[in-house]
């Protein structure tokens, strides 16, 4: 009995003192905090082959307590760029770091003005963040520029009903940098007729770089009865700036029947971001949970177009008002 009481008392005392790691609010302390937050939470170290300890040794040498905030920011931003991840940002009151090479090293493959001017003569409709119209080939076209724009079910009903006499549908998500995954679900539900595997999600279970949960399968249900559905052929247009939630949308759509992905490989960004902060008040955002496609594959580096459908925009053709990716999709749907 005495032993139990002793253990209980010790537990009581130890329980009252759950420790939280602290860092000094100086350049070294903030640098260490940033490195540690990423070290314990970032989810793609192994997938990207990043030796984070080596990165620490390389960048900590650049830290001195006499450096200015701007200098510290640049060192920290440089360290984060080693992750080559568009979901990793460091934000201060004077700057936000951003790794841009995931799209800046690739052709843009999209010019909104060309579509609006040469394909619709600026005569198109807009609702719920979607610009849409019917092409002369009797093909419906919709451009959804951001999954941050909420799509209402009523909006989708109107858009799809408007296309009801069309032979095919082009969903253009080029330059769609992502947003809310619930909007992905809202949109995808119009293209499935039964409960469908959408993908898997896996989170970190501990601080180790390889500590992950078993991928959890998640499913989408078809839209509610009475909603306008789409069962005709679909071509999804992509470019390198199709990122994050838009990348997830493409990964799901690609595996549906009668859906073709055309254009360029998407930008990736399959890690769901977490936010944290440093003692100096700077915010850091980073990929924390990995979302896999329905085949169990990572799409962090992007989703390739359907085989035979990789197309780049012809710069010369754009001068004549042609979007060669859109032209490809029109031809593809017309033929099918």
């Amino acid at each position, binding site marked *: 009995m005495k032993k139990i009481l002793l253990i209980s008392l010790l537990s009581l005392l130890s329980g*009252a003192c759950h420790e939280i*790691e602290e860092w000094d*609010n100086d350049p070294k302390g903030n640098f260490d905090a940033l490195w540690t937050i990423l070290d314990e939470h970032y989810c793609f170290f192994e997938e990207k082959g990043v030796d984070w300890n080596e990165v620490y040794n390389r960048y900590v040498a650049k830290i001195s307590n006499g450096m200015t905030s701007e200098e510290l920011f640049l060192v920290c931003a440089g360290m984060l760029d080693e992750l080559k991840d568009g979901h990793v940002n460091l934000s201060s009151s004077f700057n936000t770091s951003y790794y841009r090479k995931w799209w800046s090293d690739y052709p843009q493959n999209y010019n909104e003005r060309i579509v609006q001017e040469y394909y619709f003569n600026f005569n198109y409709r807009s609702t719920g963040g979607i610009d849409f119209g019917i092409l002369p080939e009797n093909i419906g076209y919709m451009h959804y520029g951001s999954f941050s724009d909420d799509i209402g079910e009523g909006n989708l009903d109107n858009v799809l009903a408007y296309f009801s006499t069309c032979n095919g549908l082009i969903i253009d998500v080029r330059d769609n940098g992502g947003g809310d*995954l619930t909007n992905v679900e809202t949109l995808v539900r119009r293209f499935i007729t039964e409960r469908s595997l959408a993908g898997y999600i896996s989170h970190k*279970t*501990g601080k180790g770089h390889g500590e992950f949960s078993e991928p959890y399968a998640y499913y989408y249900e078809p839209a509610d009865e009475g909603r306008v559905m789409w069962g005709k052929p679909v071509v999804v247009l992509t470019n390198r700036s199709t990122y994050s939630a838009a990348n997830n949308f493409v990964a799901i759509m690609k595996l549906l029947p009668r859906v073709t992905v055309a254009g360029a490989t998407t930008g990736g960004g399959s890690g769901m971001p*977490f936010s944290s902060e440093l003692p100096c*008040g700077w915010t850091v955002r980073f990929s924390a949970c990995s979302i896999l496609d329905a085949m169990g594959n990572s799409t962090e580096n992007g989703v390739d177009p359907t085989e035979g459908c990789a197309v780049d925009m012809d710069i010369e053709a754009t001068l004549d008002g042609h979007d060669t990716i859109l032209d490809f999709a029109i031809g593809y749907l017309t033929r099918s």
Partner: protein
Amino acid sequence: MKRLFGLILVALAAAVVTRAGTCDSVPEIKPLRPVMSAYMVEGGGSHLADTYLTPLKYDGWGVALRYERMQAMKFNPDRWVMRLTAGIEADHTENPARNATMWYWGLDLSWGMMHRWPLPHGLTVAGGGSTSLDLGCLYNSRNGNNPASAKAAWTVNVTGYVSWNLNLWRLPVTLRYQPTIPVTGVFFAPDYGELYYEIYLGNHSGLAHAAWWGNYFMMENLLTADLHFGNTSLRVGYRGRILSTQVNDITTRMITNNFVLGVSGEWISVSPRKGIDPRAGIVSALY
């Protein structure tokens, strides 16, 4: 832990059964058992930390509204009292750089029974158990996909009080110190890096955790002085609450130190049909 939990339940059950088993041949005059009710407003300092949201510790202020009800039990009223508490709480805190805000909103409900031992000089000592339900949410406005950390716990607690009825000059006063410590229970926590979006998608595994002092430590210290000016009493006091949890490498710490101001009093529910037996004594729960 199970043994301790069992002992508390057995003690409570034994008290009920023992009294229920007695059978007096003479009709018993039931004592009047007034309800002590207190309505309190609290305010003070708050310290919040939750490593799911941020590794930094936030400081600020907190306010709460609380209700407390105590009454002698129907069985053995001289020895057993019940206590019901309910409260809502809001805390507003800032990070050390003062450029981010974290809120806590919570509500709590607790019911318990205590055995009391009257001592000389107006002193009373009581000890017993209670069960509590705590629900709340920490919200950090600067975070994108992880802005909130939900808190939910059902606990079994040990509690007790020491009270002292005395006169300050000619004013009757009741002083009380009441600590409460959860012994075991169940509480909610997501996995280390699990987004609430994954829970929304349907992954509900591993969210409930058995509580013990190693992973869930809470202690509440309540100090009150009820100044009996008449039928109604003025209550002033202090409530300190420490909550520290650590599960799945997520550490949460919430510390509040509040000044308590309220009114309290005793009331009796009288049936117009039965009236009050003038021979009945009055058994107060606290005063």
